[in-house]
């Protein structure tokens, strides 16, 4: 079918939507600014709750779109609003006239260095969830394993639920990611004490609670209810963490060989930049604003502009994929109605 559909972003959402549109008979065009497909999934090791290798998922999603027009290393220069369509100018010189644009621009990981009190980028033994995934995947990080790992800590809600950081929202996936990563660390360093510092544990998804119980019972991960307030480095280069154990009602301090900051999901400036060309509204959390947060999550308030995945807020992979399929159907119905 000759109907141009531009998909901005080749992460899980963009790939799944493209795959479905191809099956419906369309030839979507994927524009991805990086040199590879998969988005954040390409950076993760294994996915909760079944520890599926993320590379398998990316491989399957990318396999389904091998016939699509894919431009990697390509950005959107500008979008002009024509009468019934949009003129999309790409950085590779290609210009596309399309009646449909799908935003699958995803999220950005909160920059943990902005929470100075946690010492990311200052203390050597402070890393992020993303750094840890990188190490699980590649084994390439001198900070982990080069010193004995006797005690490891995870800090929940870094840059999320934090008005000081400008993000009041919960990032949804980091509680379960911390549980997953804590188990992974226990598997690799069985003698290590592993602590999770949390405020509330959000185990909302299928099998998440089982995962949490297993972290406690089978792996002995210790959960401490209190937000870490300060991190410092001692003379041996270890990190000293201070918090209130709010269940004991007493301050706690613990010395760790590694501290992992669970950086949250925040709105992607690459997403908002392109959105402002149309322009599209952003919601109070900074993410792109859906026409309706219950009935029309994949629609924008503009004709022909659709959303899927983490560009509208923190989401898990299955949620992202479900939205991508739903957006593909919405696009099909929209085109049929023209």
């Amino acid at each position: 079918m000759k109907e141009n559909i531009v998909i901005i972003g080749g992460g899980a959402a963009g790939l799944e939507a493209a795959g479905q549109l191809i099956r419906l008979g369309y030839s979507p065009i994927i524009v991805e600014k990086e040199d590879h497909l998969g988005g954040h999934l390409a950076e993760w090791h294994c996915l909760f709750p079944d520890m599926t290798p993320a590379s398998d998922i990316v491989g399957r999603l990318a396999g389904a779109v091998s016939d699509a027009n894919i431009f990697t290393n390509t950005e959107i220069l500008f979008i002009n609003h024509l009468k019934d369509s949009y003129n999309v100018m790409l950085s590779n010189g290609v210009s596309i006239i399309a009646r449909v644009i799908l935003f699958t621009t995803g999220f950005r990981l909160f920059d943990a260095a902005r929470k100075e009190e946690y010492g990311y980028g200052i203390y050597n033994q402070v890393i992020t969830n993303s750094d840890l995934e990188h190490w699980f995947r590649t084994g390439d990080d001198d900070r982990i394993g080069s010193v004995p790992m006797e005690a490891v800590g995870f800090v929940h809600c870094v840059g999320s639920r934090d008005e000081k950081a400008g993000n009041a929202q919960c990032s949804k996936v980091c509680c379960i990611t911390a549980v997953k990563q804590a188990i992974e660390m226990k598997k690799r360093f069985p003698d290590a004490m592993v602590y999770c510092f949390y405020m509330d544990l959000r185990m909302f998804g299928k099998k998440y609670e089982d995962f949490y119980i297993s972290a406690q019972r089978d792996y002995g991960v210790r959960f401490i209810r209190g937000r870490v307030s300060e991190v410092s480095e001692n003379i041996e280069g270890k990190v000293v963490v201070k918090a209130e154990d709010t269940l004991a009602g007493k301050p706690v301090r613990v010395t760790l060989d590694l501290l992992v900051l669970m950086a949250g999901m925040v709105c992607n400036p690459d997403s908002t930049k392109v959105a402002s060309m149309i322009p599209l509204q952003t919601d109070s959390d900074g993410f792109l604003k859906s026409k309706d947060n219950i009935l029309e999550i994949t629609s924008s308030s503009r004709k022909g502009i659709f959303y899927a995945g983490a560009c509208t807020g923190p989401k898990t992979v299955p949620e992202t994929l479900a939205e991508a399929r739903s957006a593909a159907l919405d696009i099909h119905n929209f085109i049929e109605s023209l």
Partner: protein
Amino acid sequence: MDFGFGIAPSSTINLDKVDRSRFTRLHELEPDVYKCMACGSCSSTCPAGRFSGMSVRKVILALQRGKEKEAVRMLKGCMLCGKCSMVCPRGINTRHLILSICRIYNEEQQ
């Protein structure tokens, strides 16, 4: 009759009997007081807490559970340095809150 033992007063917090009038006044003055998520950042940073038992988190909780005397006792340890205001992730102006609590609850105590 003497059984040789007494019955200790119940430690149950009876929410039916908690007098909420002062807290309602506090809430009018400091709407953000209900935003506290009991994360403990304030207590953990407080330079006075370790010695005096002061904890903004505990004060906010105690007031809502009708343990006003306990809260007022804790407040005596506060030096009003404002460190807790700087760390509160819910953006509560805790120092201002402490002053309002002192105003409302101290005048009632007399």
